[in-house]
């Protein structure tokens, strides 16, 4: 018998805490609608996405957004987004604008929100297929299949991605989820695991 079972006060408290709230059909409908809206969103974090979230959520997003922006500025100032070109895999930003202020929001205008071509490269001689999967293509391996180079080792694909910070990985042979060995890593709160990070565009 555990200590909790022996203690009547604690047992009563647990009974109280285990009471489930009554089903809230309206809240469940809002949840489903918000999820469906999020899944059809072209790009994560794109402004102007309408969801049935209640007004109070704005405060949450402002706080989370401020934290994310702070982290991003610190990350960018350290130059950590610069791709390494001498390693097995690398990512290359194809279009940039060096005249922008380093402290401008990532997505501030319609022009800033326009997708930017981004090349992903991965080295593997043994793989049969490789795809890039990320939040920008809803983690769908069919959306960004990489093409093997003539030497049989280098795989690459160039795809348009909305400016901002994105999480991605390589899917090898439709089964092996592999991080980019040369990119920064960050914990993906959805999966509870690490993902590779790419920052597209300039802050």
């Amino acid at each position: 018998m555990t200590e909790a079972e022996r203690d009547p006060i604690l047992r009563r408290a647990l009974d109280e805490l285990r009471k489930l709230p009554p089903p809230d059909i309206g809240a469940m409908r809002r949840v489903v609608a918000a999820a469906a809206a999020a899944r059809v969103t072209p790009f994560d974090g794109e402004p102007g996405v309408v969801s049935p979230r209640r007004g109070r959520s704005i405060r949450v997003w402002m706080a989370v957004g401020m934290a994310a922006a702070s982290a991003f500025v610190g990350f960018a100032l350290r130059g950590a987004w610069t791709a390494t070109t001498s390693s097995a895999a690398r990512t290359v930003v194809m279009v940039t604008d060096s005249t922008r202020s380093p402290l401008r929001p990532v997505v501030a205008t319609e022009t800033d929100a326009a997708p930017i071509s981004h090349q992903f490269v991965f080295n593997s001689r043994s793989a049969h297929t490789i795809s890039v999967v990320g939040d920008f293509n809803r983690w769908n391996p069919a959306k960004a299949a990489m093409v093997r180079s003539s030497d049989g080792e280098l795989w690459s694909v160039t795809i348009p991605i909305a400016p901002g910070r994105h999480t991605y990985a390589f899917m090898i042979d439709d089964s092996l989820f592999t991080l980019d060995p040369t990119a920064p890593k960050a914990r993906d709160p959805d999966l509870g695991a690490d993902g590779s990070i790419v920052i597209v565009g300039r802050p």
Partner: protein
Amino acid sequence: MSSFPLQHPAQSASLDSRTISRAKLGDIDAFTAIVEAYHARCVRFARAMLRNPDDAEDMVQETFVRLYRALPRYEERQRFESWLFQILGNCCRTANTAFQRHASRTTQDDEAVERVPSLDDPTAQFDHEWSEAVKRALAEVPEYNREIFLLHYIEGFSYEEVERMTGVKQSALKMRVKRASDQLRSRLTEETR
């Protein structure tokens, strides 16, 4: 280790692996079934973590949105509800941090007063007072102990599962649960004197 009767309400919700597989493919009906099966448990957990019911509802919604977006990557060898509560725990911790920094909680008590039911019945009043006492006592338990306590004793996850979910070793988990239990008991003993 624990022989305390753990509750697994979701296991009785007849959510089979086919439903999850369909939801992975984007089937909104299957996802709706998932929401129906787990929403109440998620709300219960979020309210205990966040105290404010509106904040809790926001975080539950945020959790299901994240879950739906990440479903294509879900690997079925992982227990589904462990994954769900892992996301929910992340959301609640992030929200607590953000609210502590930015939000004024001055309206919370006023809102709570409005929700108090009619207490003409002495039994109902007693139950309500006990419920409030438990909430107050739980709120005083540090967040890092409270989350583990809730996952183990209220949501019914074993220590092995909580270790996989949080990355915290079982010996440390047991200590946290014990500390939370001791604090809860001590506080409630004072209340009932």
